[in-house]
């Protein structure tokens, strides 16, 4: 799911810290106890926006962290809307709904662990490359952009 790869250059300590922070940003909502599904997405997006002209290593990891939050937000928003329909609409609690909630919890937990692991590794200047989101980031992140 996660592999460590060689980056094009060895990032310095400043870049490693900035890249590591991009992962920590997505955890801010959790530490603040905010459970709304889009808070993590916003905090990660704003961090990316602030670093969009930063060094390549920082930008690359900002986009990888952001892409994870986009995926997780989609999963969580679906659960949120479904829950609202149950609370305020005619929809009943079903095994399918609870199965979805369980799958959502599994994905959130996995993303939480991956995020912490990635934050630690990038702080050490290591390049972590996620399954699916690594290739997506390769497509999205342009090396030459300054």
């Amino acid at each position, binding site marked *: *799911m*996660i592999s460590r790869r*060689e*980056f094009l250059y060895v990032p310095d300590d400043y870049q490693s810290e900035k890249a590591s922070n991009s992962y920590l940003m997505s955890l801010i909502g959790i530490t603040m106890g905010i459970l709304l599904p889009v808070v993590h997405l916003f905090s990660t997006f704003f961090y990316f926006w602030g670093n969009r002209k930063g060094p390549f290593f920082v930008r690359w990891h900002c986009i990888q962290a952001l892409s994870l939050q986009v995926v997780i937000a989609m999963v969580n928003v679906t659960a949120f809307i479904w829950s609202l329909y149950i609370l305020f609409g005619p929809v009943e609690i079903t*095994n399918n709904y*609870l*199965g979805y909630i369980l*799958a959502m919890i599994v*994905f959130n937990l996995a993303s939480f662990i991956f995020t912490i692991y990635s934050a630690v590794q990038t702080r050490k200047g290591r390049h972590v490359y996620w399954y699916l989101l690594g290739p997506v980031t*390769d497509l999205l992140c342009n090396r030459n952009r300054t």
Partner: protein
Amino acid sequence: MFTGTSSDPSPTYSATGTEHDPAMKKVINQFVITLAVFLLIWFLAGRIPFTRLIDFKAISRAGEEKLGNLSLDLLRKTDRPVISDSVVYYLDSIRDRICKANGIDPAGIHIYPFFSTEVNAFTLPGGNIVIYSGLIGYCNNGEELAAVMAHEIGHIEHRHVMKKLSKEMGISVLLAVTAGGTGAEFARNILKTLSSTAFDRKMEKEADSTAVRYLARADIHPRHFADLLFRFSKDDKDLPGSLEWISTHPESRGRAVTVLALSKNLVVKDVPVLSSAEWTQMQRILRTY
């Protein structure tokens, strides 16, 4: 989970189109696999019989009962309950007739008469219906009172109370239902919300049409309901502000017309719920308070 260090460099960081084709293919492949894994987890988790293992309705019912009891305790501090075996018996007999004719367990519906000049009736969580003596006095006969009760039972059966509370008071209500921990201020808010604000139009319409069905099955003609609503709409203009049930149930005239339309093709025997002697006795008892 974590594959170790790899010397495989990232495929490309170039923005040129042709180099991206294999990368795009890789993204699509990995996206399909990830989606399949998620769907598989969802599918397998959905096979777990959660709803059989956990009785969500029982949890919800217990919480609702607590909320209802808290609100009733609070109401007893401000309004005087009608302590009369006869009145309770008459009200319960109307409830039983509506419930039994419609396959509803009467033990789940509790009628609490309170002494007040306010013409009002409302439903509290836990299947508790509060009826003020002012409303009983306003009704011309037992059938009109039965119509009000059928309407409130409709709200209970459609779970409108908790839906309304969830909408107006937010997630705290749901937490209170599951956790059961509530304070006096919270109960006060519930009481205020349910006794003095309206359900939304859709819920009222639903409760009205349900009431028509309940009344017809219980051999009570729904026209009594329409009569009451027509009188409400008329008296609302003459006596502004005195009829609480109207302010919480707006557009009485339109609703009366709808009730008549719904009952147009119904063949109902219309058997009185109380004899005139019983009705008179109940009115007399309430007046003496």
